[in-house]
């Protein structure tokens, strides 16, 4: 009886997630009247705006990950090593992006860095890209920080640091050669979440008027019928593909460890 209920729960849960997905896929294939076809996909992939915006967002996502790693790994490491009492404070700060809406952050940026400010970043496309990148890094911060901090908790940061120091190593080598490789798995999971967030992000990109994938999806959704469904499926597949690749990378890193 109990088993039956758990199976029922599983089935209901699966239906809850799968039905919309199946519905979307099915709908995306019905562009040609009376027959299933990939016309919607062809149409999306042929659209140069799709390629441009998607490429832009992927690029931004990768840069966000790099910025996030450069920002978070040394910070989390330093807090654990030297400022353990500040950990709750830092943790709270990194959680703020979950509480403060993106729109508030963007308006803050625009006010602070507008063309009549000391640092007129919004004046040029490059400057705005940097602003957007910083915004994305902020959005990814809670996930990145938690992942890295959890990764750090699995090792004896202080002893490892002191051992490396007594062997003559400086900070750059300690962080680059010892700390980062040891939290790589954690960094990967943080990176995946960052990627997923950036690819779908709408508010910041739209308000800063950058040609990102999020606004493109919105635009397409407002004007077409079948293409948005195809786009959703593509975005979904890309996201899962990324997750697979990252799993693979961390698995490979693990295999290198196991093989002797």
């Amino acid at each position: 009886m109990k088993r039956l209920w758990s199976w029922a729960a599983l089935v209901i849960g699966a239906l809850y997630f799968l039905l919309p997905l199946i519905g979307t896929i099915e709908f995306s294939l019905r562009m040609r009247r009376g027959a299933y076809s990939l016309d919607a996909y062809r149409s999306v992939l042929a659209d140069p705006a799709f390629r441009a915006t998607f490429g832009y967002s992927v690029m931004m996502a990768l840069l966000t990950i790099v910025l996030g790693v450069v920002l978070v790994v040394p910070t989390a490491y330093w807090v654990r090593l030297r400022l353990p009492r500040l950990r709750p404070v830092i943790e709270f700060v990194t959680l703020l992006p979950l509480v403060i809406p993106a729109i508030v952050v963007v308006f803050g940026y625009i006010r602070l860095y507008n063309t009549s400010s000391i640092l007129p970043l919004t004046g040029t496309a490059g400057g705005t890209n940097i602003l957007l990148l910083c915004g994305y890094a902020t959005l990814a911060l809670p996930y990145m920080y938690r992942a890295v901090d959890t990764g750090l908790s699995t090792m004896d940061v202080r002893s490892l640091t002191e051992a490396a120091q007594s062997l003559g190593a400086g900070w750059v080598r300690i962080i680059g050669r010892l700390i980062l490789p040891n939290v790589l798995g954690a960094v990967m999971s943080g990176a995946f979440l960052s990627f997923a967030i950036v690819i779908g992000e709408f508010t910041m990109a739209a308000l800063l008027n950058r040609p990102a994938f999020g606004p493109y999806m919105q635009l397409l959704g407002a004007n077409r019928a079948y293409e948005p469904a195809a786009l959703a499926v593509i975005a979904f597949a890309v996201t899962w593909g990324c997750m697979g690749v990252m799993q693979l990378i961390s698995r490979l890193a693990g295999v290198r460890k196991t093989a002797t």
Partner: protein
Amino acid sequence: MSFLTLDHLQKSFGDTKVVHDFDMRVEKGEFISFLGPSGCGKTTVLRMVAGFETPSAGRILIDGQDVTGLRPNQRQIGMVFQAYALFPNLTVADNVGFGLKVAGVPRAERGPRVAEMLDLIGLPQMGGRYPWQLSGGQQQRVALARALAPRPRVLLLDEPLSALDAKIRVSLRNQIREIQQQLGITTIFVTHDQEEALSISDRIVVMHRGVADQTGTPREIYNHPTTDFVANFVGTLNRFPAEVLDAATGRLRVGGTEIELGRPVGPGPLVLAARPEGLVLAETGIPAEVTGVEFLGSVQRLRARAAGQSIVMDRFNAPTAALPAPGETVHLCPLRSHWMVLAQPEAEIV
């Protein structure tokens, strides 16, 4: 001129003074143990030598060079930690070669040096393994090789054996001592295990509340402790309050029995003390009531009460000799050469 000089080191954390006035000179190639109870400041002194803590006062000199202001990675000091602290993402060979790589030693020279180090610790086949594939004892040996590979000027070990089980502890401590003598490296070894310190050190520093209470060879520390604390902390000590009858000849009364030491003592009252192996059973002597007998193989340990004190007496196993039974009254006779006279209440010993 000594090789390593700790010149009146002091260390405070906030308001609490942890190391008071630590002054010591270590010769080149010497093996020094810091021995003391938990919290006495052993690790703190060691970390000051390594550069992880800055002394509040005092200087540290290595080979005549003042290193007090140098950062840890500039001091050329090898360190072995209680928790091994091997780099988990590197193989054993890469761990051992890490210090060489940092020092810019070319790959072609690193390989042979790493192999030599792995040979030294008796793990020549393990270079390709990762730390988690090794036992605790093996990991600690790799940590030792890693510390020694860049030819440090001083080797520091902070309770390197505490995380290991008893049998490996003994064999590894002997191995550490062998390697140390082979390389002739100046070494400081921190431990709270007196047997460890007594068995492998050239000299022992007994620490107590941030001060070096006594520095001396293991035999000096054990046989001629100069403070009450050292006498009690190292080895077991039986103490008998004594009344001085004749200070010039050393005639004392202990528990109703007269004892003649044959050497002058200070004015009383005194405490007469002896190690468990410094007491023998005899026809006459201090009467004692046996409270327990332990058979430890090569040694028999007798627990008794005499002159109002609990005492412990050790004697070698003798297959034919009868063991006293608990409750029995025996007489303890002092072996003259073993007695120590502790002044009361001042902690001075003749």
